[in-house]
């Protein structure tokens, strides 16, 4: 085991790199709307938005493949060099996204963006398992939950840093400059962060447990075959997925991403206000990752993870419903409104003499909240008596009196995330032997988070346009997956703590199966 000082070096080197990888991954999602405008041209903004979400999901779907590719490498070559490689691939891809000209001048741009996004997904698939394994293999058994929980904070802090960088860039530039070129800055910044992290990681030594295996010549010659070809190990991979990471993944993405999508697209809340309030909630919730990691060393991983899952399943609808009612202008009383009409020249192949009429209505409510409603009409449509707007947008800016109510509700959603996510690295590490740990824990983690979790915004958006659905219908997906995972975890998972991690395969399967 490493000394206390040495452990913090290990945690810092692993966490900084993982944080940067998450930052790289999130800025694409956070800038999804502008990326869809720049690279995925479409007349219908919803289609463009979903096209980006699909690309976003593609980034998540390839993560399990990254887990297999880099997990195998990590179990054969070593943890240190594998997660150095993933960091370089991730940073390079992010930097290049910031360099690609928009579709207007470069028609091949969407394909390049898709390829780079897939590379990002592959790299992320290899990073997390390496970092968690590397830290876990350095620390003592009794504090494994506490120390590995520092790695768990990086995903939320990565989102936090990405939002801070985006908000700062937006506030430092005019709206036009940000839309024209400023959105590229968060991507370009990545290369500097990656250089710093690679420099720190190069100075680190290989994991002591892996080194021991290497010295003894016990390294797996085929980690994929050993992980998924042997029933003894495959059944644990399946238990890890369906009894833990599947539910953890949907709760994580619902808390951090669907909340943002919900506030922006369903509640029509001002993007700066949404991101600022989300940042504050993330900041307050982050210490709870460490707390629940520490607590899992005392009372077991299962108890905390399943309690978080249960709370999320029963409280999602009331919390999201409250968020919607706070932002719903139907519940507000109008004080004044100001209507402005602009006529813009517009030429299309079909309507060469047509023009667009934009009607902007600015409304102030009794609680000092404001709304801007923008309706676009074609003059030719109005001439034939069609008064239906071609496009309708609303943006709400809530008064400061709502600030802590909304932040409190977002905090509750992220709090569930800290319960299910804080102890998960320790739980996964303890399920598999050293020689195939990187491969075996990475796959269920990335199927749970990448496939089940990553598709939350996409599937929830699809459900909400199903006939008969309402604004909360999208939540049935994370609630359903979370509920099934809770039941499987409750029946089959063990609540063992202080499990020894070593290279003896015989005890692993039995260690994590419930004895009750």
């Amino acid at each position, binding site marked *: 085991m490493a000394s206390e000082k040495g452990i913090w070096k290990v945690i810092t080197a692993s966490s900084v790199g993982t944080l940067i990888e998450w930052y790289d991954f999130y800025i694409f999602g956070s800038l999804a709307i502008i990326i869809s405008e720049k690279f995925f041209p479409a007349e219908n903004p919803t289609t463009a938005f979903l096209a980006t979400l699909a690309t976003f999901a593609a980034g998540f779907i390839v993560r399990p493949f990254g887990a297999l590719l880099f997990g195998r490498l990590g179990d054969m070559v070593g943890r240190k060099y594998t997660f150095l490689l993933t960091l370089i691939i991730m940073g390079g891809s992010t930097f290049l996204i910031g360099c690609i000209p928009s579709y207007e001048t470069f028609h091949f741009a969407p394909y390049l963006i898709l390829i780079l996004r897939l590379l990002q997904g592959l790299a992320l698939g290899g990073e997390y398992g390496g970092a968690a394994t590397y830290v876990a293999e350095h620390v003592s058994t009794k504090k494994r939950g506490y120390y590995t929980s520092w790695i768990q904070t990086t995903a939320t802090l990565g989102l936090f840093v990405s939002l801070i960088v985006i908000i700062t860039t937006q506030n430092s530039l005019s709206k036009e400059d940000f839309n024209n070129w400023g959105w590229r800055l968060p991507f370009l910044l990545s290369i500097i962060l990656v250089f710093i992290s690679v420099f720190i990681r190069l100075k680190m030594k290989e994991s002591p447990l892996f080194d021991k295996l290497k010295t003894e010549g016990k390294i797996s010659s085929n980690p994929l075959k050993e992980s998924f070809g042997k029933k003894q190990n495959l059944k644990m991979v399946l238990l890890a997925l*369906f009894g833990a990471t599947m539910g953890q993944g949907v709760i994580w993405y619902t808390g951090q991403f669907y909340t943002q999508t919900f506030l922006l697209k369903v509640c029509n809340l001002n993007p700066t206000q949404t991101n600022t309030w989300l940042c504050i909630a993330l900041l307050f919730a982050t210490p709870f990752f460490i707390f629940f990691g520490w607590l899992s060393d005392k009372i077991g991983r299962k108890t905390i993870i399943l309690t978080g899952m249960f709370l999320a399943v029963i409280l999602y609808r009331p919390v999201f419903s409250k968020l919607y009612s706070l932002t719903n202008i139907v519940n507000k009383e109008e004080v004044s409104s100001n209507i402005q009409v602009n006529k813009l020249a517009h030429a299309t192949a079909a309507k060469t003499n047509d023009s667009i009429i934009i009607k902007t209505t600015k409304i102030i409510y009794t609680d000092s909240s404001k709304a801007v409603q923008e309706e676009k009409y074609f003059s030719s449509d109005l001439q034939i008596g069609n008064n239906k707007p071609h496009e309708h947008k609303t943006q709400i800016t809530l008064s400061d009196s709502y600030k802590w109510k909304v932040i409190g509700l977002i905090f509750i959603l992220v709090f569930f995330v800290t319960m299910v996510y804080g102890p998960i690295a320790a739980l996964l590490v303890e399920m598999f032997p050293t020689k195939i740990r990187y491969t075996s824990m990475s796959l269920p983690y990335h199927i749970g988070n990448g496939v*089940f979790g990553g598709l939350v915004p996409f599937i929830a958006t699809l459900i909400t*346009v199903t006939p008969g659905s309402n604004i909360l219908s999208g939540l049935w997906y994370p609630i359903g997956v979370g509920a099934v995972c809770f039941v499987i975890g409750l029946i089959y998972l063990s609540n063992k703590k202080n499990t020894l991690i070593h290279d003896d395969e015989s005890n692993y399967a039995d260690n994590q199966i419930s004895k009750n």
Partner: protein
Amino acid sequence: MNHLKKYAGLVWIILSIAAITLLCYAAYTNIAAHGKHDINKPLPWIIIITVFTPVAFGLGIFGYYALKNEYKQ
């Protein structure tokens, strides 16, 4: 508890088959030639069904192992 673990395996097998059947049925009823929403387009459904089929198969295997008492302690 071991009995519950074993017989719940049947539930996971049924659930895996039901999930894929439900997805295919939902795709069949929602895909429309002139539909305006994304839910009416085949692409999102192809992505979702392709991704979830192997996962549902995995749930079936998990159920089978449970039924075979592989998770008995």
